[in-house]
């Protein structure tokens, strides 16, 4: 059993625990590399099936390539896809810095979607190595009635015994790839042949390392045009993965505020 096998087995275990514990759950499919890996892992866990809906909160500002990708693979993979539009920016907390406020539209849309579908649990593809507040996450992470995250009082989580008993009104985020790194994701994409949006590959000396909304996501300087080249590039870099995501950098605590309020 190699490293990728071990990561896969752990993610499969987590997804199976979630599926056993929740009748009404859904998985966020943001169309980025991590969420594609996550959908792939669900098909591994459930032997080719995805036995719950995939959910997409549309800001209307994704790259055209992402919308094309969604259309193609939702049909090819035969998944149950639920798409909802995000509310306009005017409805979002005006005290947030601009890019953070823009990203918060997604949180609001997700809250509404959860209420509409009466979801008990949502599966999200965040990773500990991405960002400092995500490093502190639990695999099964309870949220309050308004989706807020209380990082000061998280449940104990050890020996793969996740929190599976809840007071009424609690909502759970499930993080099956929390223990993966960016490099793990790329190696797994390579091994399994998982399709990804080609914005990740270099065009005219630039590529996207992380995909968000067009107006708040910036490409990095890169010549990496293949997965092999991306892996080689990442093995040498000391630049943070989310450096191109504006909302992470507006204030020392911008991302923390987003996440405490229910962002992924």
């Amino acid at each position, binding site marked *: *059993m*190699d*490293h*990728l*096998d*071990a990561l*896969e*087995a*752990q993610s*499969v*275990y987590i997804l*199976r*625990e979630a*599926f*056993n514990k929740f009748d009404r759950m859904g998985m966020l499919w943001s169309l980025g590399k991590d969420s594609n890996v996550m959908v*792939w892992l669900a*098909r*591994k*866990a*459930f*032997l*080719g*099936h995805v*036995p719950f809906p995939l959910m997409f909160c549309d800001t209307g500002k994704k790259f055209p390539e992402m919308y094309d990708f969604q259309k193609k693979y939702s049909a090819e993979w035969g998944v149950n896809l639920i798409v909802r539009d995000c509310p306009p920016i005017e409805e979002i907390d005006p005290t947030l810095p601009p890019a953070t406020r823009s990203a918060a539209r997604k949180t609001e849309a997700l809250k509404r979607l959860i209420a509409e579908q009466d979801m008990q649990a949502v599966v999200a593809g965040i990773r*500990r*190595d991405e960002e*400092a*507040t995500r*490093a*502190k996450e*639990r695999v099964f992470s309870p949220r309050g009635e308004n989706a807020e995250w209380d*990082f*000061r009082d*998280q*449940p*104990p*989580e*050890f*020996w793969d*015994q996740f*929190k599976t*008993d*809840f*007071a009424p009104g*609690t909502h759970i985020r499930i993080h099956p790839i929390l223990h993966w*790194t960016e*490099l*793990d994701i790329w*190696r797994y994409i390579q091994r*399994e042949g998982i399709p990804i949006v080609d914005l990740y590959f270099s065009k005219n000396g630039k590529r996207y390392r992380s995909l968000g909304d067009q107006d708040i996501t910036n490409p990095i300087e890169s010549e990496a045009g293949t997965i092999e080249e991306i892996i080689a590039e990442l*093995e*040498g870099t*000391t*630049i*943070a993965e989310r450096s191109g995501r504006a909302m992470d950098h507006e204030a*020392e*605590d911008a991302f*923390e505020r987003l996440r405490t309020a229910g962002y992924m």
Partner: protein
Amino acid sequence: MHVSSEIPPLKLVVVGHVDHGKSTLIGRLLHETNSLPDGKAEAVIAMSERRGMPVEWAFVLDALQAERDQGITIDTTQIFFNTEKRNYVIIDAPGHKEFLKNMVSGAALSDAAVLVIDAKDGMQEQSRRHGYILHLLGVRQVAVVINKMDLADYREERFQELTTEIRNYLSELGLEASAIIPVSAREGQGLISAPDRMPWYQGPSLVQVLDAFTPPVLPTERPLRLPVQDVYKFDERRIIAGRIESGRIRTGDTILISPSNKKVTVKSIESWNTNAPALSASAGQSVGITLSEQLFIERGQMISHEANAPVETNVFRARIFWLGRKPLEVGKRYKLKLANNEQTVEVQSIETVIDVENLTTHSGDTLERNAIGEVTLRARAMLALDEFSDNPKTGRFVLVDEYDTVGGGTIFMEGYPDQRSRTDVRSTNITAVEHRVTPELRAHANGHEGGVLWLTGLSGAGKSTIAIELEQQLFAKGYQVYVLDGDNVRFGLSSDLGFAPEDRVENIRRVGEVAKLFASAGVLVITAFISPYRADRDRARSIAPDLFHEVYVAADVATCEGRDPKGLYKKARAGEIKEFTGVSAPYEEPVTPEVTVDTADRTANESVAELMAYVEENFSLVKRNGDGR
């Protein structure tokens, strides 16, 4: 320098008392190993200057605003770094007492630990508690760092003094530190290379010690344990899903499912997007298997091979660390989660509460938050489990109270037997014969029904005395009556058995079967055995449910020890007899016996008279029919 990411990182937890410098150590270690992203070191320096303080490397980790303001680590953080040898994930576990649940959450994930101790303060409460919990969790690779040596003027005497204290404490736990290293994280001394401020230290640096740790080995060579996680029927296949915790499974294997004890063959090992169907799978893999027969299988059951099956029991002992706001209490029920099994358990007793300060133990009725103790837990249903020392993955559990995980524990079976049934009929080609002489005919001939009076109680409670007297009085009244006595049986029927828990179980099983034969022959059988385990008496009852009458001969340990007719208590107290019921092995009182005779405050004759009345009432045809003989 970057190491290939294809090798899994070694998971390292950093523990210790609050303010002993864990976060600073990690921050500096990341800096020294060039593991920080560009600009992070500069950011930390700028952040420190903004707050008007010397460079605080802990800021690397304390990413959250709240933490920086309070200056303590709230939660477990995971940080990736690498040396020239390999990759690491560091788990920074909080040292504050309030956050033991987070320390446990971090430490349970780790392959090795760094215990940080302040050179000035020395071992403090949480240093000891963390040491103990590492031991409980089974973390065996531990590097001890004596930090802040700069505040102790880099003195060798101080280092030696602490080294002795730490080694003594850890050795009492059965832990041995891989190394004890003098360090100043703030000044970067002793982390990567030999500390130039401490020329007297000739040992390895922290990084050298870390690089010498060995990565975890998957338990593929241990007996198979595959807890059933779920059963799927998405298509025509009925798939049993689960993660192999230890051992291997192959298609064609005959597997045993516990606790239902059914046997079945593995038909296939299913997978998706793989090159070829797998013929075998091993520890660590999450698998889906199909079976040759459609048996009833559900989440929580345990798959093993027939040889090396897990222990089957409804009662076990455990070392527990308690995290709940409300204390653990005797008599209280909790939800047990063991692998994928969830069952209600009751706290039968708390044997000891462990004081981590000096490792002494005392008795108690509760375990408070953050305490450690040894308890006995009882489930309603049979559980398939292992001792932690045999198989950590299936020998540990958590307890849930209402909605929260309130504690964790590791299992040991001392004093309790494996209850896996030995009554499976092993002979083949056997057929039960119908008697023409019916029980009714026998009863009519004898004037009474056959049956079993099962006397249970401590040694010295008066079982044999009562049994022999009762036999004589009943015989005088014309009863077909016979006493099966503990010691007598052990001269013959059970001469091959000792007093280990498993032997006691087998002894009681044999006595139960013999008693049934006597009773079926119309005899009134009186058995006089301590029979300490509830489960065994229940099993004896199940051999002949209509004939079985449980008689609790009740007297407390002190009374019995005062009598001590055979001098056994004396020997047990002196340690000459091991596993002696009431002294060094448990006695489980009957829950609903047919009769209780309390011998502590009455004479043997009074007890016998009480039982005579019970027998006349329940077995005699003379009284019931009034037709004489």
